[in-house]
Structure formats: C-alpha cells, structure tokens
C-alpha cells in the first residue's frame, strides 16, 4: 500500500493496484494529468463504502472521494447493526458480497437474534458493534480492495456534458469538481451524501451548519443539484447523548446477555470473531414522569421539535414519545459503544434540548443518577432528493450516469444505506460497460421492496425498513437470501430482458451474438460455490423428505415426542412431520437414519430444511403470485416516453403527471404508482405494443425477428 499527501489530499491505493496506473488520463477535453475513473463514489459512509467496493468488485476502476479518510466506515449514530427487517437487508447485502455483514462479524461485541420465538421468516439478526473496530476493519477492507482508490476532498460541483442520444436525461455527468477546483473525470458518479446536503445541526435553540458533529456540510453540491432541477425536500433525524460508562450504576438495572452461540451475519462465516463469554452485556432502564416534565417545560428551548421539517410518523426522539404518548414510561437501552470504550449509548433517548437540560434529564433516570454526559444529543436537518427521480437501478432520470444511494434518497439507517450502496455500485459499473441494469424485484428481496417503494411511492419521512412492508415476507427470509440473490449477483442471465429503446434492442442482440452473457460479477467464486452447494443440497433434501411417506400411526411410533394427530390423513410425508414445532431434522433423522442422517451433518442445512418445511404450504401459493408479478415486471416501458405530450394514448392529465414524474420502467411499477388506474395501464400496454409492432415492421431484419422470437420463448420459460 502506498499513500501520498499533497495539496491537502490523501490518496491511497491498494497493493493490487500498483500494477495498474492509479488513474488513466482522460480524453482530449481534459487538461493533462486530470485523473479519470470508471466510477467515482462521493461519500464514505455506509452507502458509499458499499457502492465503491461493489463497483470495484464488478471490475470498474473506482475512486472513493470523502471529506476525511479517517471517517470512512464511521457509525455516526447507533453502535449497532441489524434488527428486524434490517437484518434481512444485511443478509441480502451479504448475498451480493457486500461488506457490512462481514465487517460486523469481525467487529461485534454483543450478538443477538431478535424475534426468536416468532418464526424464522421474521428473525432479526442484530449486534452491538464496536465503532472503532468497525471503522478499522472497514478501512482495511476498502483500502485493500483491488481497483479501488481513496482520495480526500469535498465535491463542490458536477462536470456535465451532452447526453448520450440513446438514453433519456437532459445531460450526462462526466466527473466532479472538488472544492480546490481540481477535477476528476468519471464515466459514472455515485452520490452518497448522507445528511451532508445543507446539513444543519440543532441543539436547543442553536443551529449550525454541519453534516455530522464536527464535519462540514455540502452546500455547493446541494445548490448544483437544485439548479439541475431535482426536487429537493427536507428531513430531520437525531442522535442521543453519550454517557460515561463508569458513571452508570449498572448493578440496579436489568441485564441482557448475548446469544450463545452467536449467529454470524455473513453466509460465508461459520462463527463470529468473539466468543459469547467475551461479549458485553446491554442494560435496560426506563424513563419516568420527571423526564416528561423536563421535556414539556422546555419545549420553547427546543427548535428541532418546533420546526416544521417533516419528521416520521414513528417516534424518533424522546420528545416525540413524550408528546404523543404522554404519561407512560419509555424503555432506554444502555448499549456499549465498544469493547474498550468508556462510552454508553442510551438508545431511546434521542434528544435536542439544550445540553445542560439533557444532563438534567438523564440524571433523573434510574441507574443514571450520577451519569456524566460526554457529548450531548443533537438533531440534524438535511436535504434529500425525492426518490421518484431515480430509476430502480438508482440512476437519476435527469442526469445520465449519475446515481444516488443512501440517506440522500430519504432513507434512514445503516442497513438501508448499505443496501442501496451495493445496488448503485453494481449498476454504475454495469452502466459504464453498457450492460443492462441490475434490478432486484420486490418479489426477490427486501432490497427490492425498499427501492420499489422509494421509486414508485416516494417518501416524506425517513424511510425505514419493516417486515410488514414486504408482501412476500414468508419467501424473503434471512436464511435464504443467498438462494435468492447470490446467483443473480454472479450472473446477469436471469435479469429480466429489457428492450426499452430500439438501440437497447440492437445492443442486446449484439451482445448476445458477440459476447454472450457476461457476469455482473459482483460475487466471489467462493461465495458462489457455497451458495450453489447449499441450494442443490436443499433441493435434494426437500425432495428426499417428500419421498419418505409412512402412515401417521407409524410416525407416531417412530417419533413419540411429536403430537401427530391421528386424523383423517392416513399417510404423511417426512416433510409434513418436520412441520411440527417439536420436530427438527435431528429427531427425524433418528427415526429414519437412512437416508436422512447425512442432512444433519451441516447445521445450517438442517435448520434451513426445517424452515422450508415450516412454510412449505404457504410458499407454494406465494410462488404463484410471485410469478404473476414478475411477469408484469418483465414488461418494460420505453424509457424515452414523454408522457405529458404523448398523443396516441388516452391518459388523464393526473395520470400523465404521475407517470412523468416517477418514470416507471415496467408495467408492474407503473401499476403500483398511486393514482394510476387499471384503464391507464391497459392503454399504456396497447400503446407500447403498437409502437413495438411499428418498429418491428420498420426493421425487418431476419436476425431481429429471430431474436424476438427467442426472447418470447426465453421469457416464457423464465416465468
């Protein structure tokens, strides 16, 4: 690894990169020595790191631009990762070979799966994470990623050029301008500005511009985006104060111990780095009426609460809890910030009172009577861009090759950011290589639900993932994220085929003929092989369990522990027996050692077989529905439709406006936009079909015909 300091910048490149020129010279338009990358990622938070690493994994020369290298991988808020819904996202990020799950397996200090008693579809993998370790491990990973370069610098502006005629958008981004005036050219740019766009920090009545405590906001960039015509909104969030660990009286508080054994986040890890007995506990305490009083008496000193900037419907701060649910006590979790950290993070106490009142409030809570506040809680208000302005590949409609990921799209949470980061990184890279985008459908993963919700519905509160948002919750489980996504991450074969523009079509034909399908390639060989092995073992195991069939009385004798009912059903498959709550594969294999014993040797396989059995009946029905929806999503709408002026199709003005703003890419997405009627969908379909016919007639190339037929067939097979 080498690094050089100069001009206030710091460049680090990986060992592997030494063989490559760190940056190639850009074309004639640029001054000599102006660096040129395939992908430039702006921001080094959870979206930025994932985006940069994913782009590099896909084979793009990538530059990560951040205000400060030492804040890469910073956990700016809570010292934890995962949870219900969020754990699902992490598993999916991992299935695409993303970083955060693996880093968490190396940096956690308290691993605990939530919802253990509520069914495996809604288990929430979660861990308290050592902030310092996470940052260290993340930086090590980022700085050692082949093809990935890191540079310090604040981006002030975008370099824009003429749009590519074969794509929509009014211009194309071709690089960024830094604060010092220097330029970096790039074929794709990903913005992951987090809360930095016109970020304002609020404590009490004080407000000052900052993206995060101690960091400058990005104002120039925000202005650039607004000037380009992006619709900007404003959101707010907050973080609690930090408390000195030794000043807390833990002995009188309820203790929560970690799981034993710890369940790792990543599919490729068997265990985590730390033994359960070495992990740290969490503690829980509660607020009391005195806390309510302090908050209510001092509302006039609390501008974050008074401001009209939209907050979420849920209760992000202790103030909102007290205001909306008065006369209750609220939980406060005391979470360790690190294995050797002397700070405690009081989750549930996010507050923006003036600092001295925060301390006063803290000390009236049980166990915190003598607590010392090390850093006050604060609120952040920041710009976000209406996410209906981006496509499901996270590219903006307005500016070609410009991608947005993370809080800039109105989400909240590390995991939501990481999930978008991976997708933006993969797509920025695919875009450079002129390959079709990589889109995860809402039938395939929480990542798909997240992005589909954002791009079709928009959001006016910080969007957070909940399992209740996923209609196919029983299919999109943490245990099977690899089967759902790893194969897609490895290859673009199963991508829906899209002919959105005629040029795309000819390009597709070319790539079919000349190149064949090339891998999207964001997944390592090791992961791919592991997932393949697991998938085939599962399939084999399930068909084996289906093939073993005995009478219920025989099962009763074989497994007396099971409460098998002697009802009408005479014979039962082993799979049906495995559905009983008290039966696991171990027990079943004891009863029928041949051929089931071998499936118990891998613990994960045995558990996953049990889970598949639990949901078998419902999954059968869900698969039918999923197929129906995927069929709609394979129906692409032309990207270059001008809905406002389109004359050949009868659509109401309201529907036109909605379609114009969200620019849905598929009929499926269009039909999910609120206010787009079934009749409008039929009219759209008819219109698209008519122009397709016209185009086909105009291009009576025998090859085209041939390929179209193939596509038809391919699609049918796929569906």
């Amino acid at each position, binding site marked *: 690894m080498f690094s050089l300091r100069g001009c206030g910048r710091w460049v680090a490149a990986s060992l592997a990169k030494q063989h490559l020129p760190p940056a190639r010279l850009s074309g004639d338009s640029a001054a000599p020595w102006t660096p040129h990358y395939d992908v430039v990622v702006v921001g080094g938070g959870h979206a930025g790191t994932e985006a940069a690493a994913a782009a590099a994994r896909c084979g793009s020369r990538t530059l990560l631009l951040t205000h400060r290298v030492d804040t890469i991988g910073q956990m700016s808020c809570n010292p934890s990762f995962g949870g219900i819904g969020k754990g699902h996202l992490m598993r999916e990020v991992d299935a695409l070979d993303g970083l955060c799950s693996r880093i968490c397996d190396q940096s956690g200090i308290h691993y605990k799966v*939530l919802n253990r008693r509520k069914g495996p579809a809604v288990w929430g993998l979660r861990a308290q994470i050592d902030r310092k370790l996470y940052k260290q491990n993340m930086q090590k990973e980022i700085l050692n990623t082949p093809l990935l370069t890191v540079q310090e610098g604040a981006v002030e502006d975008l370099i824009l050029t003429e749009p590519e005629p074969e794509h929509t958008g009014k211009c194309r981004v071709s690089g960024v301008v830094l604060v010092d005036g220097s330029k970096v050219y790039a074929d794709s740019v990903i913005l992951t500005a987090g809360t930095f766009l016109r970020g304002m920090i609020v404590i009490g009545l004080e407000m000052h511009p900052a993206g995060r405590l101690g960091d400058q906001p990005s104002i120039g960039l925000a202005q650039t985006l607004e000037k380009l015509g992006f619709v900007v909104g404003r959101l707010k969030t907050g973080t609690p104060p930090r408390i000195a660990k030794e000043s807390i009286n833990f002995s009188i508080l309820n203790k929560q111990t970690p799981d034993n054994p710890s369940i790792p986040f990543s599919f490729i890890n068997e265990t985590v780095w730390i033994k359960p007995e070495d992990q740290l506990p969490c503690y829980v305490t509660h607020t009391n009426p005195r806390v309510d009083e302090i908050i209510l008496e001092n509302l006039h000193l609390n501008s974050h609460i008074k401001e009209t900037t939209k907050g979420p419907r849920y209760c992000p701060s202790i103030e909102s809890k007290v205001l909306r649910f008065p006369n209750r006590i609220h939980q406060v979790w005391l979470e360790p910030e690190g294995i050797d950290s002397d700070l405690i993070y009081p989750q549930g106490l996010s507050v923006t009172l003036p600092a001295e009142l925060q301390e006063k409030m803290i000390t009236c809570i049980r166990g915190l009577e003598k607590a010392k506040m090390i850093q006050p809680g604060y609120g952040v208000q920041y710009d976000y861009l209406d996410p209906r302005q981006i496509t499901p590949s996270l590219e903006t409609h307005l500016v070609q090759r410009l991608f947005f990921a993370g809080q800039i799209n109105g989400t909240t949470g590390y995991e939501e950011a990481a999930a978008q980061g991976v997708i933006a990184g993969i797509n920025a890279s695919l875009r450079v290589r002129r390959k079709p985008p990589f889109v995860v459908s809402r039938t395939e993963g929480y990542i798909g639900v997240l992005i589909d919700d954002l791009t*079709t519905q928009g959001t006016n509160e910080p969007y957070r993932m909940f399992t209740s948002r996923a209609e196919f*919750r029983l299919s999109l489980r943490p245990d099977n994220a690899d089967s759902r996504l790893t194969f897609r991450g490895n290859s673009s074969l199963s991508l829906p085929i899209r002919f959105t523009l005629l040029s795309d079509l000819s390009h597709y034909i070319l790539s079919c003929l000349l190149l064949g399908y090339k891998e999207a390639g964001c997944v390592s060989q090791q992961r791919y092989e592991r997932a393949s092995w697991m998938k085939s073992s599962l399939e084999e195991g399930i068909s084996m369990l289906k093939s073993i069939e005995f009478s219920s009385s025989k099962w009763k004798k074989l497994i007396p522990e099971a409460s098998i009912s002697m009802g009408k059903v005479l014979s039962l498959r082993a799979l049906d027996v495995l559905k009983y709550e008290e039966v696991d594969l171990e027990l079943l294999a004891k009863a029928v050692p041949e051929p089931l014993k071998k499936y118990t040797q891998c613990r994960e396989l045995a558990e996953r077989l049990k889970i598949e059995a639990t949901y078998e009946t419902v999954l059968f029905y869900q698969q039918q529905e999923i197929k129906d929806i995927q069929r*709609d999503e394979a129906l692409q709408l032309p990207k270059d439709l001008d809905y406002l002026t389109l004359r050949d199709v009868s659509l109401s003005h309201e529907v036109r406006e909605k379609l114009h703003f969200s620019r849905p890419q598929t009929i499926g997405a269009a039909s999910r936009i609120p206010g787009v009627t079934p009749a409008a*969908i039929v009219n759209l379909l*008819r219109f698209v079909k008519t122009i397709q016919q016209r185009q086909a007639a105009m291009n009576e190339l025998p090859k085209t015909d041939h390929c179209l037929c193939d596509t038809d067939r391919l699609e049918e097979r796929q569906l």
Partner: protein
Amino acid sequence: MWRGLWTLVARAARGPRRPCARQGSGARAPGSGATIFALSSGQGRCGIAVIRTSGPASGHALRSLTAPRELPRARSASLRLLTDPRSGEPLDRALVLWFPGPHSFTGEDCAEFHVHGGPAVVSGVLQALGRVPGLRPAEAGEFTRRAFAHGKLSLTEVEGLADLIHAETEAQRRQALRQLDGELGQLCRGWAETLTKALAHVEAYIDFGEDDNLEEGILEQADSQVRELEVALDTHLRDARRGQRLRSGAHVVVTGPPNAGKSSLVNLLSRKPVSIVSPEPGTTRDVLETPVDLAGFPALLSDTAGLREGQGPVEQEGVRRARERLEQADLILAVLDASDLASPSSCNFLDTVVTPAIARSPNGNSQRLLLVLNKSDLLPPGGPDLSPELPPHLLLSCLTGAGLDGLLEALRKELAAVCGDPSTGPPLLTRARHQHHLQACLDALGHYRRATDVALAAEALRVARGHLARLHGGGGAEEILDIIFRDFCVGK
C-alpha cells in the same frame, strides 16, 4: 410476449387499488389459473339466464353440478338436472354446454348453464358454483381479458377493452355501493376495521415487539378480536335471511333543482301517483323508489329531493340522500325547468351535476345522463329561446305530455346499453361475490387460529384482509403502518 401481458391487466382491473405490492399484502386472489364464473346474460326480461365458467376447473364444475356423469359432447347442448353438489338439492333442469379449450370463447375450458331466469334459480346455481373448489366469481372484464390473453381477440377488438374494463369496474363499484349502502355495508366496514387493527397489532408485535416496549398482551387482544370476527362472519354466513332485499333492475335517478318537476316526471313514467306533487319547492324530502318497466326494461326509478342548500334539517338530510343516490345511479335523469334556466339554482345544477357527469364520460362509458327540460308548455310559442351552450337535451311537458315519446325513445337506448351489459351487476352475482370472499376470509381466520408461528399467523390475517378488501376496498401496507404508529410508541 403479448400473451403474458394480460394477467397483469386482469389483476390491475380488480380495483383501483392494486392487489400487488403495497396494496398487495391486502387484496390477493388466486392468479390467472383460477376458474371464474359469472352470469353472462343481461338484466332485461328474459326466460333464460346464461351462466358461464372459464378455466381449468370448468369440467369439474360441470360434473359437480350435473352429478358425476360424463361430460356432455363438446359444443352441443344437452339437458341435465342441476343439483347442488353439497346438499344434493335439485336446482333446475337446464341446458348445459361444454366447450373444451382452446376452441372456446376465452380459449380455456368453458362451460355454460342455460337456466330458467328466475332469481331463485340463478342465485342457487351461482352459489353452488361458488362452492366448487377452485372457482371464484369473475372480476370486471375478466372473461374478455382471458379471451384476449389466449389470442381470441385481435388488437383492434381490444381497442375498447380499456374502456370496457373502466366501465365494468365503475358499474361494479356502483353495484357494490348499493349493496354496501345499508346493514351489510356497515357490517363489512366494521369487520374490515377489526381485522385491519388486529393485523396491525400482530405486525407491530413482529416488527417492534422486542426492542421497543409494546404493552403486554397485544397478541392476546388480537386473538380475541379475531375470534369475535370469526363468530360474526360465521353467524352472518349462516343467516338464512341473507340480510338485504335485492334491488334489481337499472337504477334510474331523477334529480334537479327544487320545483323543476321531478316528481311529476316520476309519476308520469310510472303511470301512478308515486310522489306528492305541489307547486311548493322542496315537497319531496326522502328518496322514493318505485320499480317500473321503462321501454321494456326493468328499472328502479328514484325520486329525490331537489338539490339546494341551507333549508331545514329534514330537507338537508333529503338532499344528502339525494346526492348519495346520485352516486349509485346507472342513469341520471336531470330535470330542469325550461322556463327558469337563467335562475341561480338551474345554473348551479348545470355546473355541479350535469357538466361533470357529461365530462366524466367522454366515451359514454361512465355514468349516463339525460338532460330533460320540463315545462316546455311555459316557453313562448315562438319556439324555445334557449342558450346554445346547453348540453344536448330533451324538451318535455309533464303537464301536456308533449315530448314524452322522444324521452321514452332516448330512455330505451340508454337502458338497452345499461341492461345489455351483464356486468352492471346483477345483484345476485354481487351477492355470490360477497359470500365467496366472506367464506374465504373465514377460512383464513381459521388458519390464523391454528398457526404456531407468528409470521404464519400474520400471513393468514393478510390473506383474510385481502378478501375483505375485495368487498370493501382498502388494504394497503401503509394503512397498517399508520395504525402501528398511532397505537404504539415505537421507533428509535
């Protein structure tokens, strides 16, 4: 490729709110593989009613109703005794036809039952079909869409499909409004509320149960709500009275400003003094219904209170009811006083009722409206001096009867269009739909009770809610989140 498109439309057309995606956790229904049935003859007076099925279970349905005999010869009529497969009760002696796919109207296996047209028989057959596993009542335009999906209609024939789906959806909505306007509607709303709340609480328990402190016992509360709902649904489904009187026929609503002569028109059309007529504005205060035969079509004629603001509470209630009835109408007879067109009440009526109704239906596929200018006898004899901006209208004098023939002819055209379309909701079919979805909802609630895994239990509630949403609308995931955030103090 075109072939695949149409399952989508099928789903899209199930309602203005999409079953898939966000709405989706709610309104789900069997996919395109389901077998559908519907009454496919219109509402006009007829001796024979035709009930059609389409889909893979058509053959099974045919055999279920005709006792386990061989399927009849393809495409030729045979006489069979139809019996209820569950009770064994004879339903009717009917002609049945069997059209194995692909040589059928939709391209799928189809069956037709030509039964005697009485409501009891039709209702009995529809209910019997609803009980055959794999069958469900058709959604608006679904037969046509299936035909298209299987290449039985050309692209040009499909030109009108969007309009058709729109019209059918609208008609079904109006029909549902009528059905839901009353006791059953209130029950349905109540059930949907209870179920949505129970689901929201189970979802909250899943998404927030451990990290945030939800109150104790929310799951138990949801359990008892679901149990109560099960009892209520079960009681309702067993209730032999079946709730409501079915109001069949095209709904024709007479409306207009006060004292335009609406009641006179109703009396004229029904040829009996249904409504009290007086020169005093605001005489009619409630909705008066009378079944009539209009130009050969069965119709339900409603006389309503004159639309005006600011009178006494009784009249205001009358006006509210009038507006409500207007929403449900298949055909609106808008009556104005021809000698009083310049008055504020006439202008206001033209602006707020007539113009929007005409504007809403550029293709004549929405609500139909006939504008009648009454009291033509009061117009100066030198020919009517009417503003050219008036929409198309008919002149009539209820007093002299002049213009009545023209009106009846116009009515005949409009009603032929309304009644010829089977989807304008034979109430029997609507009732079959209700029963089907209520039963499916009840079945899903049973799965909830038996589930040991909370995620599975929640899934059962989602399915149950989907079925209620088909009757009542709603069903989005956002609605659930709204309740969660309203009822619980959650969030970090």
